[in-house]
């Protein structure tokens, strides 16, 4: 940061070098991302029909136009934003479109989805631009803490009144559209948690009673960290936990409840610095997961599938989705079968949504899969980097929350389809077919852009004679 000399009032201070905004880098990376997606699209066409798909230009042009508009919005209103965020989002979204288009070629998977995914991506980019242009400062959001919380709750509860789809009540269907309100609730909850925790940090961190009362043990730091806050402050935590288990039971949505709970524990830990919260969170999560896993039949079967992915084969019922997914990953091996040349459509109806990663694993191989994971990792890392550089607790918490959301979601869904943890029906950010998911993730990226812009923006030049007011 510039430090104008205070000892030489006569000479005008030399203008501090403006830190580079890196918008040119961003543009180059975006061009590269669009090129990669276009190349993938062409490869699918060549593998399928032996010729370039005639609508390749349309697809490439559409994606390029969207990316360019987003880039111009960032250039206009967030010129110091992290230059990696937008290109990564464009690349992931582009690869997602290619994978969905590739799966559209298998007629057994139902209606074609790539076009609608492109439309939803356009909606997502539109909202991205809106957020970047309209939201001048992320701190404005802290005013809407409780509004966000209430809205999130309402959205989560709403699907209970709609019929279940494929065993999970997480959809609202209306006039031909179906949206997954839980996706939007993610962002709202992150805002709510950030607002609540940044407002109640002190109470959470310093009040309460110790579980272990023996004063002598106070010298051991970790024991003090087991100090729990009073019930009044603990209350919201329990409410949130019960709510997430409630959502799980009522809507049969293991993934979302796990995500919300993980998000809350991470944000609580970052807000208070109490390791004890992690312990409590893990205990509660374990208890909740155990109860749900053993009592709720839908979740119970998921756990059984995870433990024995080939049980249905042994029973003579043919491979389950999870087994098919593992076959697909194994079929890819190190270098993959090549785009359009795998057989991940064998997974069945969820191939474009929950299991889209299996297509990536089969056709792009371990190398491609690792590249995808690293892209997500980079996105998350840039989020955390912005959080470290930000000054305001709300912004830091919000950014940590959004980055953790992405990380947790990638882990939960990727771990699920690869038999690392029980499978949960969630969408791989940007890759999976699903309008709500794409739109939400674009909003998350917009908020990260906004936060990183604030984090990297140089301090405004102090005008001589004017007292600087703390923001």
């Amino acid at each position, binding site marked *: 940061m510039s430090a104008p000399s205070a000892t030489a009032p006569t000479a005008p201070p030399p203008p501090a070098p403006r830190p580079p905004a890196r918008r040119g880098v961003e543009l180059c990376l975006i061009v590269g991302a669009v090129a990669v997606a276009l190349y993938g699209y062409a490869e699918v066409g060549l593998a399928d029909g032996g010729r370039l798909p005639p609508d390749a230009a349309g697809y490439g042009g559409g994606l390029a136009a969207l990316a360019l508009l987003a880039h111009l919005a960032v250039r206009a209103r967030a010129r110091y934003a992290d230059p990696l965020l937008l290109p990564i989002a464009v690349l992931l979204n582009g690869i997602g479109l290619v994978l969905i288009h590739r799966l559209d070629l298998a007629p057994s998977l139902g209606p074609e989805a790539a076009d609608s995914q492109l439309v939803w991506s356009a909606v997502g980019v539109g909202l991205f631009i809106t957020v970047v242009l309209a939201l001048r400062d992320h701190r404005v959001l802290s005013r809407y803490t409780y509004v966000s919380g209430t809205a999130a709750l309402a959205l989560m509860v709403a699907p209970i009144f709609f019929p279940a789809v494929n065993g999970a009540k997480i959809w609202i269907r209306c006039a031909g559209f179906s949206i997954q309100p839980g996706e939007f609730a993610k962002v709202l909850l992150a805002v709510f948690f950030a607002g609540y925790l940044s407002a109640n940090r002190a109470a959470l961190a310093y009040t309460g009673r110790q579980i272990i009362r023996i004063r002598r043990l106070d010298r051991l730091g970790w024991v003090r960290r087991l100090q729990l806050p009073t019930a009044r402050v603990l209350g919201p935590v329990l409410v949130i936990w019960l709510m997430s288990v409630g959502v799980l039971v009522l809507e049969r949505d293991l993934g979302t409840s796990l995500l919300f709970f993980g998000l809350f524990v*991470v944000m609580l*830990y*970052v*807000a208070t*610095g109490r390791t004890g919260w992690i312990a409590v969170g893990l205990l509660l999560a374990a208890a909740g997961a155990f109860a749900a896993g053993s009592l709720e039949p839908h979740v119970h079967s998921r756990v059984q599938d995870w433990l024995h992915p*080939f049980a249905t*084969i042994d029973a003579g019922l*043919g*491979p389950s989705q999870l*087994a098919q997914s*593992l*076959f697909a*990953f*194994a*079929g*890819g*091996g*190190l270098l993959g079968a090549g785009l359009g040349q795998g*057989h991940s459509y*064998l997974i069945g109806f969820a191939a474009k949504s929950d299991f889209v990663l299996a297509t990536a*694993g089969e056709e792009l*191989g*371990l190398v491609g*899969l*690792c590249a995808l*994971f*690293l892209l*997500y*990792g980079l996105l*998350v*890392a840039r989020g*955390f980097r912005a*959080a*470290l550089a930000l000054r305001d*607790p709300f912004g*830091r918490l919000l950014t*940590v929350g959004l*980055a*953790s959301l992405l*990380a*947790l979601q*990638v*882990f939960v869904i*990727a*771990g699920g389809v*690869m*038999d*690392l943890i029980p499978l949960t029906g969630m969408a791989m950010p940007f890759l999976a077919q699903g309008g709500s998911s794409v739109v939400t993730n674009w909003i998350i990226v917009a908020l990260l852009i906004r936060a990183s812009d604030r984090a990297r923006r140089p301090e405004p030049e102090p005008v001589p004679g004017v007292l600087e007011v703390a923001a």
Partner: protein
Amino acid sequence: MNRCIRFAAAFCVLLLAALLVNAARVQLVDAHAYGSDPANRRIPIARYQQPRGDILAGGHRVTGSRDAGGQFRYRRTYADGPLYAPVTGFASQTYGSTLLEGTEDPLLAGTDPRLDSVPLWNEITRRQQRGGDVYTTIDPAAQRAAFAGLAGRKGAVAAVDPTTGRILALVSSPSYDPAELAGTGPAAIGAWSRLTADKDQPMLDRAIRQTYPPGSTFKVVTAAAALESGLVKDVRARTASPDPYRLPGTRVSLTNEGPGCVDASVYDAFRVSCNTVFAKLGADTGARAMAGQAERFGFNDTRLRLPTGVAKSNFDTAMGPDQVALSSIGQFDTTATPLQMAMVAAAVGNGGRLMRPYLVDKVTNHSGLTVGSTQPQVLHQAVSGRTADQLQQLMEAVVTSGTGTNAAIPGAVVGGKTGTAQHGLANVGTPYAWFISYAKPRGSAVATVAVAVVVEDAEAVRADISGGGNAAPVARAVMRAVLGQSTFGKLKP
């Protein structure tokens, strides 16, 4: 707060690391186990992704592949399916493959390492090799003649080239069209359940997989054993044979269908097929010598491969004299495949030398380069040349003035033996009509074709003549088809 943010970031790194390690486990470490799981459809999908190699008879493709689209793209087609079914078997996307389609499957499917021009190259590049072709020894003219000769009657024909062991015809009737089983879905399933439930067993390859009591055709083996053991020195000399003949140690008497068998010479007894003479001859020769002779003709051999497996033809090795007597006229526990009896005729026609029968001439890669071929091999010296000459006299007499005159071909020397095999409980079943024969162009020392024919539901009376009446014309048609080619049409049709 920074410390906590860093810890949270480290936690995310931990999650990422777990994902990467798990991805390596699934895609590298466990990939082979997943890839070879029988429930993994990638294996059959890859297998049917390209057209299969073909099976050829007489230079013509009798199989083909059709792009039917869908998951299992290429589906087997058959030209003249029922005709060649006992040779090709079927290659079904639902029910696997049998006979040559089964034994030559790696080559036809393109997985046989012999197809690699550079060893291991395709294993490294994971490129799928085009399937190779299998050239059979089948003579289409002989095959067609045999199939037409049976004309839908239950039965089988096997024909071999005595000098090499090449199998010229393998026909089983009633037959089926393997194309019906080629695909997937209700059509294939329906055809399968219909064919397997059919009481006529159309999918049974009677020429090599079904054994029958050989009846009087086995008298060739008995005569060979008697000659080889020295029991009979002159086939024209009278034997001491009662009619009826009481089986040794029993009260059972054996009779003949016709007269003139009392003390008949081996020559006459063979010509008119006297049971009494040959039962006594077998009993006198003894179980050990009989079994040894039968095995030198190929009986009791479980390891014979064409390369398709052949059912074992049986001659018991431990029997009492009465059982030996019955076995010597092709009854009791003696059973033989049509191929086995064709081998007996072939050995006689080839001067006593039994060649190993084989069905695959050569295999080539997709572009026609030979990657493997079969060389003729001697299986056994079944009898000495002198004995073979004597046996040829006996068999040729059957055709010139015996029970097998129906097999005579003008311009060719034909030797044969009729048979009627009684079977069923107390011999009440409709007897099987047999005819085995060889033929050589006049002036030739060795036979060019040997045939065995079985007709199961012979409508004739229970007489030895039924073999000559029902089966001999079929054998003649097959021999004529083969001779017609080797002598370039010198024979009148």
